[in-house]
């Protein structure tokens, strides 16, 4: 077995990492030649680019000449092909022939990353959040998003992560009655604000919020994954504008994707909630 396993630090009382015996010793491990090969790859592209922009390629030419002087001998054969009529197939054959490998991490250049700081310099990690009318104490990392805090620290999994990029709206929550994408809001930002999630809409006696009831009545949800967010955007709309037109509702809901395409039914639900509120 080539896999690796080690104990969790502090997990079972054994703090020293134990490597599986079949891990190859360091000397036998594949030598990473990522620096050379990534340069090699990009030399290819640069030279093509230079040819393509021959009339205005002073930068490109300079790059290529730099490459020529610094490239490793192991790649020069393949590199030569880049100056002639180059094609992808030639390139791949060339790579295979010259035995060059490429680091997966640097194939397209790694983004810069910084290690987790030993301590957070700015904010106090322990904070109080007001969620659905309750004050909750919670330890929050500086880069933690509200969606993560709600879902993984407070157990409020009604808020969904559909994209984690502020695109789909499944994570929509209210912050002081305004709808936001919680996946793209730092939790530390909402310390002194009122947060409402889908779990906070029902009355204490279990009566559904008018929007929730209207979504039931109009069969708004299909798969249901976007529904929490649709509910929250509809509630935000009604709190800001209790009597919207259908067109206003449509625009207010436009930040909530539904792949099932239930937009018509959701809008029917919003308008029903308006008329029954």
């Amino acid at each position, binding site marked *: 077995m080539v896999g690796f396993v080690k104990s969790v630090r502090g997990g079972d009382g054994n703090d020293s990492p134990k490597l599986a015996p079949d891990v190859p010793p360091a000397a036998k491990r594949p030598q990473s030649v990522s620096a050379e090969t*990534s340069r090699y790859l*990009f030399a290819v*592209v*640069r030279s*093509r*680019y230079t040819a*393509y*922009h021959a009339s205005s390629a002073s*930068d*490109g030419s300079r*790059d290529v000449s730099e490459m020529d002087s610094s490239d490793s001998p192991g790649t020069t054969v393949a590199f030569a092909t880049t100056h002639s009529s180059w094609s992808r197939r030639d390139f791949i054959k060339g790579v295979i022939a010259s035995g060059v490998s490429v680091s997966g991490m640097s194939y*397209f*250049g790694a*983004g*810069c*990353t*910084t*290690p*987790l*700081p030993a301590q*957070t*310099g*700015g*904010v106090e990690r322990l904070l109080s959040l007001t969620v659905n009318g309750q004050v909750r104490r919670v330890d929050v*990392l*500086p*880069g933690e*998003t509200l969606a993560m805090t709600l879902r993984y620290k407070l157990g409020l999994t009604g808020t969904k992560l559909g994209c*984690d*990029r*502020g*695109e789909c*709206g499944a994570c*929509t929550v209210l912050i002081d009655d*305004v*709808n*936001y*994408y919680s996946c*793209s*809001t*730092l939790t*530390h*930002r909402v310390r002194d604000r009122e947060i409402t999630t889908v779990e906070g809409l029902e009355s204490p006696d279990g009566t559904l919020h008018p929007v929730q009831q209207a979504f039931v009545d109009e069969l708004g949800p299909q798969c249901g994954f976007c529904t929490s967010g649709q509910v929250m*955007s509809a509630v935000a709309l009604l709190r800001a504008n209790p009597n919207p037109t259908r067109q206003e509702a449509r*625009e*207010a809901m*436009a*930040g909530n*994707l539904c792949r099932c395409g239930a937009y018509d039914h959701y809008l029917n639900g919003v308008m029903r909630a308006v008329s029954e509120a």
Partner: protein
Amino acid sequence: MMKDMMSGFELYQPADVDDAIQLIDRYGNRGWKLAGGYDSLDWFKNRGKGPEAVIDLEGLDALKGIRETTDGVEIGALTTLTEVERSPLLRDRYGLLADAARRVASPQIRNAGTLGGNLSQDTRCWYYRYGVDCYRAGGNTCYAAAPEAMNREHALFGASRCVAVTPSDTAPALVALDAEMVVRNARGERVIPAADFFMEPSVDIQRMTVLDPDDLLTAIRLPASWAGADFYFEKVADRKSWDFALVSVAAAFRTSGAQIDEASIVCGAVQCIPRRLHDVEVLISGRTRNEETAALAGAEAIRGAEPLDYNHFKIPLMENLVKRAVRG
């Protein structure tokens, strides 16, 4: 390739502009200014950017709000796009900007996103966002202009090693309005005309604006010169929400009857910076605002366009949008 998990950073939440400036100064290019945060967090999660410290500007109430000045209007850089979109003052006198703000992404993004952030956002070239080591990312090539590249969304003008375009909806409107950017750093304050605010790749390929790492955009000033003018804003995108312009146009006109006295026309998403169409403005000044003038303007607008393999449709689209703006 996207990574999906943020690296750690230190988070500062100053409540005072001077404190913020100090922090920004201290961290320089190791720090990151967080406004609305939606695009910033995207970068962090992808690990395309990994600042040591994030300075959250949200607490800087002094940089929020829209107020009248003796010569126009000043908008705090941290004013949300929703406020810009809904401000009665802006709707009344600078409807161009309100219209542009209204076309940004989605309601949730406009609720969090700020005017300053929208102006300063990074380009959406998909190669760059994918994480390739292109010129803009500090590498030594442009993937988007390579022979087989997919560059439907890319530039018609001003390409210089990089063919990415400005993604901002509000930037063209602000350039058209001759806005000024108020910028502060530890050494003081300076005012930059919108036309000089955006960075050409030929000057600095790794930046979208002239802001230095230690600079803080504090306000956007709209001079009275274009207040209450005839405005036209249109954004053409593949989707009507949460999408970036294929081409956009922002225009302002001063007219006497049917005659155009003065015009300001800017296109978005055709160049790395908002493209002010000075030649068109000169050409149509003094002419009657009609179909014929519109056609002249459209034809002039696209002069010098250099399409890539997949974006030549932007030429007629840009021509049409300029025509529509002039046509009114």
